[in-house]
């Protein structure tokens, strides 16, 4: 089956996606900490640090590998969301 993925380099996309996961996991964990420590400045600084890291990772991924979510579609005249394989196709990670 021919892969419909427009990824230039599947390995890079997997690596970029992993960076998104890593930054997102750290953000989720510090959110749990902030729920009980809302006035911890160190935790707040770390939250914004990993938030920016996650946003940058998402931006880089979407620029090279396509949208991660529907609101990340960048094409103006084409719905690029369908370029990536569907979950049941088992392609591209």
């Amino acid at each position, binding site marked *: 089956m021919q892969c419909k993925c427009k990824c230039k380099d599947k390995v890079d996309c997997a690596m970029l996606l992993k960076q998104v996961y890593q930054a997102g996991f750290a953000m989720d*964990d510090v959110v749990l900490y902030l729920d009980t420590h809302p006035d911890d400045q160190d935790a707040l600084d770390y939250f914004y640090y990993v938030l920016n890291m996650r946003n940058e990772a998402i931006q880089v991924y979407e620029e090279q590998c396509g949208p991660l979510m529907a609101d990340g579609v960048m094409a103006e005249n084409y719905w690029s969301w369908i370029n990536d394989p569907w979950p049941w196709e088992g392609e591209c990670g």
Partner: protein
Amino acid sequence: MDCDTKQLYPEFLPGTGTYDWEVVRGVDMSASPGTVIRPDMPLGSGPARSELASLASIPLSQQEMPSGACPWIQSKKSGCSCNKSGTDAASEPPVMKCPGMISDQRTEKCPERSAWQMPDKRPERPAWQMADRCPQKPAPQMPAMRPGQKMGVSPAVSCPSMPPKPSQVSDAAECIDQFPVGMTYVPWQVWQRVFSVETAMNMGTIFPDLFKPFTKGGCR
């Protein structure tokens, strides 16, 4: 059941297993399994209520109040008695002294109450008091809530500084005996150096203190 308890629960008169209404009616219900509903009795006057409680439905003027005595205690069944301190019990309320109790704490005057009135309040005894087990230890100081702190989260207590250093762990363990029972306590987490995002993903946490993998033979 001590005298104090009888004052708090005047309707419960143990000893013979027979309630007053049974004696009045000539019925021996000592072997009764418990509360029953008798068709020949109006609702609300069953065995769960004592004769004294049923007096509430009788106008006050028609009741025979035991003058000078604690009206809610029947001396024939109670373990303590109200010793009249004067000849005229109506003018001067008697002083109740319960045997086996500390006189300076438990001596009280019998207030003038109606038979159907319960005592206003129970003896003030903090729920966390552990005088029997640890009489030498002071009462624990409940930790103050921090701004924005949610309920159910235990902040740092006054005993050890948090987080406890290895040398302070034993102090925290000793202090736990002074906390209220039936509760769970979690040490207050403080910010620390965190794993890198790459490492945290593999460790399952960004906090090294929370990295406790389950290994064979116990948790590390």
